[in-house]
């Protein structure tokens, strides 16, 4: 007996993957165009630089704002390819949402109780976090990375993790679990954005170093995205939200463990990794306030934290064993 709702859900998910793939192409085109633009801009700046210097020396300006532009103001330049990308992401997210909802209806519970469902709902949340962030900050340059990443994750999920709808074993029937996993996925959504920003930051730093060493600019599109400092601040602000959510993940997990197993903390494999992730991100927040670690060092820590998250999801769930790999109620009456 194959659940018909589950079949529709799978169909929707595959359509969503296809749409995300086209969105990826659109964002990639945008990046390619940025490369070309930045070449043009470099030429323009060379031509105009003399004039800029002259006016900067001027006397009594009425309103002097020290930095050229408040960094908050989103740069609303037209980018037709990126716009298409965003529109497609919205369509993809709608299909994706439909897939998750139908899966939940088919199973009669929340759609995040096994690897396939985590992957499906988790990537949906990643996309939603990205789309919501777009309304406040211009992160369109990350579109290709996010869309590409989601396509890869969903591809793996449908091919390797897909399982038929099944009911929740008693140990998983808990509101705390619902909350724990939901908050973990939300946190992961924020951490994903932050990680992408840190990658961009590291690329910017490398570019600056190359420029200082007088070597050529290989990734010219970087000239059109924010500079390393701004990227670092964005990454920090976004991972702060992720960190708070992860703290709740840890706590909700402990409460649930206390209800299910009678102890809130037992160093079970998944508990260990949730803790490791939390500590690494705490390290990242510290690094931002530590001389000599700010900048590149903290960006790397952010990425290590994210690598731990991926490891926790992709490797620990599948290959490690512990209480979280439930076959049901632990049966041995030791």
């Amino acid at each position: 007996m194959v659940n018909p709702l589950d079949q529709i859900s799978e169909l929707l998910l595959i359509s969503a993957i296809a749409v995300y793939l086209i969105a990826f192409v659109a964002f990639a085109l945008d990046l390619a165009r940025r490369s070309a633009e930045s070449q043009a801009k470099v030429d323009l700046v060379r031509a105009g630089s003399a004039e800029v210097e002259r006016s900067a020396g001027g006397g009594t300006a009425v309103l002097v704002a020290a930095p050229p532009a408040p960094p908050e103001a989103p740069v609303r330049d037209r980018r037709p390819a990126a716009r298409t990308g965003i529109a497609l992401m919205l369509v993809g997210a709608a299909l994706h949402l439909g897939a998750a909802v139908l899966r939940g209806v088919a199973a009669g519970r929340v759609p995040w109780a096994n690897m396939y469902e985590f992957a499906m709902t988790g990537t949906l949340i990643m996309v939603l976090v990205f789309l919501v962030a777009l309304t406040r900050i211009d992160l369109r340059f990350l579109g290709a990375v996010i869309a590409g990443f989601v396509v890869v994750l969903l591809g793996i999920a449908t091919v390797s993790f897909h399982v038929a709808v099944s009911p929740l074993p008693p140990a998983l029937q808990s509101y705390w679990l619902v909350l724990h996993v939901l908050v973990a996925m939300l946190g992961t959504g924020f951490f994903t954005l932050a990680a992408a920003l840190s990658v961009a930051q590291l690329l910017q730093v490398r570019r600056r170093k190359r420029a200082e060493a007088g070597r050529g600019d290989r990734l010219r599109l970087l000239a059109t995205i924010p500079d390393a400092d701004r990227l670092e601040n964005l990454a920090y602000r976004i991972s702060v939200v992720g960190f708070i959510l992860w703290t709740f993940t840890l706590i909700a997990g402990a409460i649930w463990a206390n209800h299910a197993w009678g102890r809130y903390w037992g160093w079970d494999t998944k508990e260990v990794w949730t803790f490791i992730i939390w500590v690494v991100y705490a390290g990242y927040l510290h690094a931002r306030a530590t001389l000599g670690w700010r900048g590149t060092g903290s960006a790397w820590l952010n990425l290590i934290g994210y690598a731990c998250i991926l490891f926790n999801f992709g490797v620990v769930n599948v290959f490690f064993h512990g209480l979280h790999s439930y076959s049901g109620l632990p049966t041995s009456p030791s």
Partner: protein
Amino acid sequence: MSRPSDAQDRFTDDAVVVNPRLGPLEWLRWGWRTLTSMRTALLLLLALAVAAVPGSLIPQNSSDPNGVAQYKAANPGLTKIVNALQGFDVYTSFWFSAIYLLLFISLIGCVVPRLRHHWTAMRKAPPRTPSRFTRLPFSSSIRLHGVDVDAAVDAGERVLRASRYRTARYGSSVSAERGYLRETGNLLFHSALVGVLIAVFVGGGFTYTGQRVLVTGDTFANTELGYDSLSPGRFFGDGSLAPYALRLDKLDVTYEQRNVAAFGQPLDYTAHVSTKLPDGAWQKSIIKVNSPLDVAGTSVYLLGNGYAPEFTVRNADGSLAFHGSVAFRPQNAQMTSLGVVKVSETTDRKKQIGLVGFLYPTPAEQTDGSFTSIFPSVGKQSLVSFFVYEGDVGLDSGAPRNVYELDTSKMKQVAGRTDPVQLTIGQTKTLPDGLGTVTLDGITRYAAFDIHHDPSQGIVALFVALAVLGLITSLLVPRRRLWIKVREEGDEVVVEYAGLARGDDPNLARAVAELESKHRAALPEAAREPAPVP
């Protein structure tokens, strides 16, 4: 630039200069400064993360004792090294403990001076107005007519106060600061972490955890003897066990029957129990997997279940040799279960009987003649299949024995794979070698309960809540300084505004712009329009 260099002033400086000739006291001071520096805290945090990894790779005694035994059997060579490094008890090992203890000493050494510093800073006036605003990240200025300097400064102070800044006047300027809560939150967070650690450690000593298997109808008394196993905390004493009794009346289990993909998967376990306090009546309650029963300061968890077939064994002369329910241990999801019946009350004490039985709740015969279970419910169809041994079952020696295992090394097998004794409910079969008869009277269920007593939970929860509160305030409250400076220039008044973030503050530019517009709105009508550019 979002974090000015003076944002670092709250914690110990990292730049520690090592002098060539240091006395013992200086060395001590140097060590302390290094330990409580931000860089050391960071390295210790990272070390803690790395040190936690091996415990997820190697099975741990605390969470997976069976895994440890398997690991030892599979890697005899490695076991020695792992043992020496306390690798089966990573989270209580000397090296893991050393890292977190150092981290917490560092934390205390870092927080205490910051508490003191913050205490004075909170009561001190905001710092002097800087002389040149253009060096600050955000500044602006306007020229006004028709207002005097004092009125402009007064209006500025009023506006800043209304926006909940703490203000101080320096000449014809106002210095304002807000967001002390950020540092308060940060300190609360770090102090609460220390609280959590202490509560867990001290509180852990007052806990106890015990296990007990109860067959339907049986009663457990909360005494040391009542437990199958009991692990008390350090401060466990005679009076620690609250006296009460708990009886398992019924265990209901439902299995999935409609969804083929999950056929036979358990959907629900509900234990119906009765409890009785020393001077009370029996009270009925329900225990489920995610909802323990709280009774007399303990929590009772339903952590396992299985079948307990009830047998009668009679000697050849018809006298009773054994009667009772025996807990069988589930072997797989379809509840094929394994159990041992040890019969020592035989007529000939040299010929005690050991029965090693497989229970197939819903049996299906396989091609080789053996059975398997295809659904976990028991009923008329259920089958128990025994191997029969004769000899010493080991109950007389007094040594504690595992009730699920029979040491057959000194016994003779009289029925085995080819000729097992098979019973359905109600059936009686003759045992070989004149050993008598065995009857399967029925099959009930048993539940495995974990009973916990942890008086520290409330305090741990309180500190965790404080930590979260502190964390959120410290991460989300912006801390910033704003300044207004007014001076006369001919018949005009020049007002300058500036802001500086302490820590991360995405809205600083907006705050400076808002200050300017609010200030202008607070000035007398005549002064609201800025003077035209000359």
